[in-house]
């Protein structure tokens, strides 16, 4: 059976839905094909045990794009949608740090550090803002530039030079390519404060604080703060996707779940549509892939339709995940030493200092999981009691580092040992935590790959490193949302500016597709 649409979107993750909505609003007939039983992809709420649900992958919202929210009429500040959350960095002595957008508070910090935090955040948010023209546009080609490429570059240059001013631009150029470890040591005294900030530079990446490039990853995270304050969605991250799905349907997008795309059809260098795993063919004028680069090009298009060096570049994209996701079903609210119940609604992290974080990363370099992992924890059932039976709770944990290629493989013994390390780590801060545990689920990057159809199980469909960013994301030759195949576009985290629940790749891809006018 053959059906014809103007646009088929491969993958109903948040970027796919956003791209679909923009295209539908522009008057095109759009079909979203999602492999899983519900849309949302990494932004979903999943039941992992009878009666217990939590965010499937992403669980902290930091930077759903303001323009996307406005265009799609998502009221992100509505209390029924999200609850603002500070970051609380847990300390063994109970002197926890509370890190807000502008200020940090902790009895242990010196006045100098308190003031330095405010100045640091202002300065670095300024750098992040200066990247705005680049983030919200198709990254400009450096060769064969068209007028739009030149305008984007000029805007970026203007923004860096005159937006920042001489002093700040000089400092930005100094720190832009170096590591967060050196920068934080220059600015702060408190090891605890430095450890907490470093987490935002490395989480989701195969990077430690001393890895060059971690200032850039930190800036990309901070860019989120220029869009919206950090928050926890009420009802899990699936809430975002429910809102986006609603917006898409209202715009006239047709959504099919349980429809896994096996192949993208190409004839004479132009995409013709897709073939589902069931064998069903869906024709379309253009195909937009929300999948990662390897899945899109090597698996779905296939090497025989592409140039050899292009395939090699795609195959060389570093997109192996390094973060595991854990879901705990608890029969009572965990008791973290020194935290009030209200504070448990915040984003909790365990990263007592930068050495701790760097040592955690050392294991990953050699194919081991961290002995003392860095943890990011949320208890979404505090914001939405329906996620667990009455009186019970769910806790969602991102644990790094957990390399995709574990030396011993992710067999049961490794999984048990890793869970044990995580529980022991939590126990240091919440004695007796394990006794409240009813059930747990561990998703290693390999599980994430299987369940979320992301090759390598990487949060961002590929490291957010300089060589895989901007006009080189995911690889040059496919970095302007266009691909070597005419009528095939990318709209997901594999494309500029990368991962996170931002919606920006989906937004930018839609603008590009509409500008191309080949639907």
């Amino acid at each position, binding site marked *: 059976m053959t059906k014809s649409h103007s646009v088929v979107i491969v993958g109903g993750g948040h970027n796919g839905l956003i791209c679909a909505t923009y295209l539908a609003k522009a008057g095109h007939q759009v079909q979203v094909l999602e492999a899983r039983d519900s849309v949302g992809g990494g932004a979903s709420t999943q039941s992992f045990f009878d009666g217990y649900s939590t965010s499937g992958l992403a669980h902290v919202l930091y930077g759903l794009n303001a323009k996307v929210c406005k265009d799609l009429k998502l009221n992100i500040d509505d209390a029924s949608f999200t609850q603002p959350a500070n970051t609380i960095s847990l300390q063994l002595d109970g002197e926890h740090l509370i890190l807000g957008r502008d200020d940090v508070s902790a009895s242990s910090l010196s006045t100098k550090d308190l003031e330095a935090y405010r100045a640091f955040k202002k300065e670095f948010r300024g750098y992040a803002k200066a990247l705005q023209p680049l983030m919200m546009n198709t990254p400009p080609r450096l060769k064969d530039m068209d007028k739009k490429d030149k305008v984007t570059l000029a805007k970026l240059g203007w923004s860096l030079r005159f937006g920042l001013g001489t002093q700040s631009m000089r400092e930005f150029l100094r720190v832009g390519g170096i590591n967060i470890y050196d920068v934080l040591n220059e600015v702060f005294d408190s090891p605890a404060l430095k450890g907490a900030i470093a987490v935002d530079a490395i989480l989701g990446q195969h990077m430690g604080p001393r890895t060059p490039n971690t200032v850039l990853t930190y800036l990309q995270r901070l860019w989120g703060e220029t869009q919206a304050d950090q928050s926890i969605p009420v009802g899990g991250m699936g809430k975002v996707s429910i809102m986006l799905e609603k917006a898409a349907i209202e715009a006239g997008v047709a959504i099919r779940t349980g429809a896994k795309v096996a192949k993208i059809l190409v004839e004479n*260098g132009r995409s013709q549509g897709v073939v589902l795993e069931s064998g069903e063919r869906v024709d379309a004028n253009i195909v937009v892939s929300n999948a990662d680069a390897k899945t899109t090009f*090597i698996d779905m298009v*296939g*090497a*025989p*339709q*592409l*140039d*050899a*060096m*292009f*395939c*090699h570049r795609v*195959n060389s994209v570093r997109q192996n995940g390094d973060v595991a996701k854990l879901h705990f079903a608890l029969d009572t609210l965990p008791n973290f030493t020194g935290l009030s119940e209200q504070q448990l609604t915040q984003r909790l992290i365990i990263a007592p200092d930068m050495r701790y974080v760097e040592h955690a990363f050392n294991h990953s370099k050699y194919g081991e999981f961290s002995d003392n992992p860095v943890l990011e924890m949320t208890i979404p059932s505090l914001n939405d009691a329906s996620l667990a039976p009455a009186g019970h709770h769910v806790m969602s944990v991102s644990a790094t580092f957990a390399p995709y290629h574990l030396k011993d493989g992710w067999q049961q013994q490794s999984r048990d040992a890793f869970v044990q390390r995580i529980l022991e780590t939590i126990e240091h801060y919440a004695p007796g935590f394990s006794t409240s545990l009813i059930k747990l689920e561990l998703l290693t990057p390999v599980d994430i790959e299987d369940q979320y159809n992301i090759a390598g199980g990487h949060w961002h469909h590929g490291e957010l490193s300089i060589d895989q960013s901007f006009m080189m994301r995911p690889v040059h*030759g496919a970095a302007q949302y266009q691909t*070597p195949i005419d009528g095939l576009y990318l709209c997901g985290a594999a494309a500029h500016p990368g991962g996170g629940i931002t919606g920006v790749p989906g937004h930018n891809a839609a603008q590009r597709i509409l500008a191309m006018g080949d639907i």
Partner: protein
Amino acid sequence: MPTQTNSHPATDFREVLQPSPFQTRIDEQCLVQDWMSWNGYKTARVFDTLASEYFAVRSTCSVMDLTPMEKYRITGPDAQTFLNRLVTRDISTLKPRRVTYVIWCNDEGKVLDDGTIFHLSEGDYRLCSQHHQLDWLLLSSLGFDVNIEQETHNIAALAVQGPTSCSVLTAAGIAGMEQLKPFDIGYSTLNGIDVMVSRTGFTGDLGYEVWADPANALAVWDAIFAVKEKGLFDIRPMGLGALDMVRIEAGFIMPGDDFNTAETAIRADRDRSPFELGLAWLVNFEKPYFTGKKALLAESKKPAKRRLVRLSVEGNKSPTDAFLYDAKGGSRIGTIKSCVWSPILKTNVSLADVEFVKGKPPASIWAEIYYQKELEWRATWAKCTISAKPFWTHPRSSVTPPNKF
């Protein structure tokens, strides 16, 4: 997974150049000790005199060691689709026991190398190339179920070329030579030794290439030269010097000499597309996708900027490395890449890189030639003419069965 077998015979560390399986015989016959390196092998440039070797291949028979040529064995379920994605020509129509000349390009449609594909038997291919290509072959194999094995050092090969070459091989004891059409492959024996013979070569003349196990290399050499001992034919070993003369006469290009291969080109405009090399006839846009197709399609729609052309140069002064101009003292429009005084045509023939004007060859081409008279440099102008066809061809190179001698 593709594999690489390396069966270099053990060499002493003082032997900078690798000996060929024919080396003992080559050493005996190379009177002038004029050696050069070909893919790391010790290869003769000249055995005794250039002229005698040149005239042997054009009037009787010459023998040349081909072992150093890069050879790759391509097998596996996707061997044919892999090769078809690699090269610009349609390989799906290449029948078993046939050979074809091919080029392959990078993503930008610039030529990486040229060579020949031998379809040895159903699904079993050998790719011969001028330069080392294993890296590119392995890189290109992503997504194909194919086995790639470098067999450069595992096969001894001799080119037997010239008007009497068929008669020589027949007299040496290889049966069935007269039935081989150009680009055919035949399997036969020579004194009980298994040999493969292909009617291929790089001379533009009648000729064959004999392929055997390196262990049998000397036996094959001796059987061929035994024909000379009987006094039937003159057979001479040929060095790379004479080969260069005859291949320019035949209009065959040499990657690395006549153009920068894409892998070695550093400056942006130094690599060349098939169109720029005058090899448009090798590019098939009707077949399935191949590396460089998109770039070549785009290029094919634009007027040609330059071309490697066959250029006859008037006069008897060698135009080696000469600049080319659109008029005597006019604007520079190109350079001579390879040239030779053709003894058989009595003229200078060359391959030259020439800039086109609005997609067309320039109306006139002049070479500025510097030459010496008793150590005194002089300059002169020579008129050049583009030759649409190879400078030298002969019906005997394609007739089957070949003339008997």
